[in-house]
């Protein structure tokens, strides 16, 4: 289907990752407009009016976040979180690999708005091509005078660095990201103080997601009214959804918020693989609870998905079909959190190990009737008791799976085997 893209402009314009192509297609016009027509405070107001919310997962209003920076004369920092590693989410990777200049332009405008003089892109270590693309885009932006001293004669100056992480999901948590950027282990910090007060190098810092910042040039170009014309009053605008799992066309889809989940899966992603029925959907990355198929008509906005019993999160939508063993799928996800727990606090470090052990034991037919209660008990001792959100994130799918599919967990125990044959993938025949 043909559509106009505002974030994934690379879908329409080949080679837009090169500055000449980006410039020929209106690139950096938004920056020119921002520095010529807006005072920084007016830009913050514009983003507030647009209702743009953080696209990294939490959905916090971006303009409000910018407004938290104290006016105390300290040097400010803008840090862009490009540590995309939430299972099921791959939207930021497409932006940084294929439309990096829109991100860079968004960073410059956002830094102008927040009066930051230094900006950093924290790019996850696994994105080797992505970090190369970003470094090239930043170099090209310097060469064209969009970065450095006195940008476009505005008197505003900005330096931007690309910083490579080295493999740690926890560094997507903003305070752990800042620790890592300071050359430390990526352990989260105690909050408060929040980064707006004491962030990078102790200075006032805004941490925004890649997709959030990529929205900014479009909002400057087309206006806040354009943005609020899409979505709902509380969740306006565009969002990229990453669809994966048992659908015909797993891909990124840029659609207005409040588009029904059914439309995303059936029209955009082409529906389920032939002969398969939908069993459950993880709508917002691996950290959020499952939705049952009866919730397919839920509009994909922050409030509606919450009301349906899950969260919009990062927009990473994993679709499970009737051939997927829910215990096996849950075991796989909880193992992810075991691997990625930073080990700082006990409930998360030990709890994720314990839950993975029990789930894998169950999946292999070695579970005992006590195990079901054990899982719920361990989950109860993690929920709300961890230092950072990672512990809670490990529970979303598990707790909802045990609620909706308890019979499957029990069948694993009482039949001493996985009824689905311990398979997450079942069409290989060799």
């Amino acid at each position, binding site marked *: 289907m043909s559509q106009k893209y505002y974030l994934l402009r690379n879908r329409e314009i080949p080679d837009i990752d090169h500055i000449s192509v980006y410039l020929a297609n209106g690139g950096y016009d938004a920056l020119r407009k921002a520095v010529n027509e807006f005072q920084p405070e007016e830009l913050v107001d514009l983003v507030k009016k647009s209702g743009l919310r953080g696209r990294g997962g939490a959905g916090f209003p971006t303009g409000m976040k910018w407004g938290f920076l104290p006016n105390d004369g300290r040097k400010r920092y803008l840090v862009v979180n490009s540590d*995309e*590693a*939430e*299972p*099921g*989410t*791959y939207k*930021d*990777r*497409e932006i940084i*690999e*294929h439309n990096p200049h829109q991100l860079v332009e968004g960073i410059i405008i956002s830094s102008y708005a927040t009066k930051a003089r230094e900006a950093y892109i924290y790019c*996850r*270590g*696994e*994105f*080797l*091509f992505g970090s190369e693309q970003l470094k090239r885009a930043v170099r090209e932006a310097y060469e064209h005078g969009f970065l450095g001293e006195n940008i476009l004669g505005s008197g505003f100056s900005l330096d931007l*660095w690309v*910083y*490579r*992480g*080295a*493999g*740690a*999901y926890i560094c997507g948590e903003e305070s752990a990201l800042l620790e*890592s*950027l*300071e*050359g*430390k*282990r*990526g352990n989260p910090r105690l909050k408060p103080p929040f980064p707006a007060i004491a962030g990078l*190098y102790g200075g006032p810092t805004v941490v925004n997601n890649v997709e959030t910042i990529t929205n900014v040039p479009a909002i400057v170009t087309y206006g806040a009214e354009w943005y609020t014309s899409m979505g709902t009053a509380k969740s306006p605008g565009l969002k990229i959804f*990453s669809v*994966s*799992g*048992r659908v015909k066309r*797993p*891909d*990124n889809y840029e659609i207005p918020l409040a588009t029904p989940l059914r439309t995303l899966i059936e029209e955009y992603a082409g529906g389920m693989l032939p002969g398969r029925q939908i069993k459950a959907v993880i709508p917002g990355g*691996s950290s959020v609870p499952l939705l049952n198929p009866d919730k397919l008509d839920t509009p994909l906005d922050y409030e509606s998905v919450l009301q349906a019993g899950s969260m919009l999160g990062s927009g*990473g939508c*994993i679709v*499970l079909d009737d051939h*997927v063993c829910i215990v096996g*799928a849950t075991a*796989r*996800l909880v193992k*992810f959190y075991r*691997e*990625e727990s*930073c080990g700082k606090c006990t409930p998360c470090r030990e709890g994720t190990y314990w839950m993975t052990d029990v789930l894998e034991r169950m999946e292999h037919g070695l579970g005992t009737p006590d195990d079901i209660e054990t899982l719920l008990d361990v989950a109860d001792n993690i929920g709300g008791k961890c230092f950072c959100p990672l512990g809670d994130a490990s529970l979303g799918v598990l707790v909802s799976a045990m609620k909706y599919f308890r019979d499957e967990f029990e069948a694993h125990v009482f039949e001493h085997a996985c009824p689905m044959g311990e398979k*997450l*993938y079942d*069409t*290989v*025949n*060799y």
Partner: protein
Amino acid sequence: MKPEWSQWAKEAKEQFPQANSSLLPLLHRIQQAEGWLSDETIQDVASLLGLTTQYVESVASFYSLFYRDKVGKTVIHVCVGLSCALAGSDHVMEKLEHKLGIHEGQTTPDGQYTLLEAECLAACNLAPVVQRNLRFHGPVDPAELDADAFLAGDGNEVNR
């Protein structure tokens, strides 16, 4: 210590002068050249940046992409996240294990290949996805995978 390392340390410190921000870039650069970070390398980096060996070790050991054991010339990461598992990543891993005669986490005796699990590489549209020296390859059809050709470095690298 290689003679060029002190120059690299100087450059890293110039680029990232605050806190210990120069540490990760320097470790990346040295690992790029050496393949891995030995105990001696950790000591050298510590002295180059004026840090303690224990501190550098604590940081290096935190991140999965800093190899504290010797790895093969080609490091293969098979993504085993849920989306890739749903598309058959376990079979891909199995095929590569059989072909290389090693288990996940091991290096072939000739020092050519290291086979590792990766936790979600954020490329679920390419599931099942594999990285060869951090370059994406996918979707790798588990039934059709020609392990010989893949290991030899044939085509299908994707940048999308």
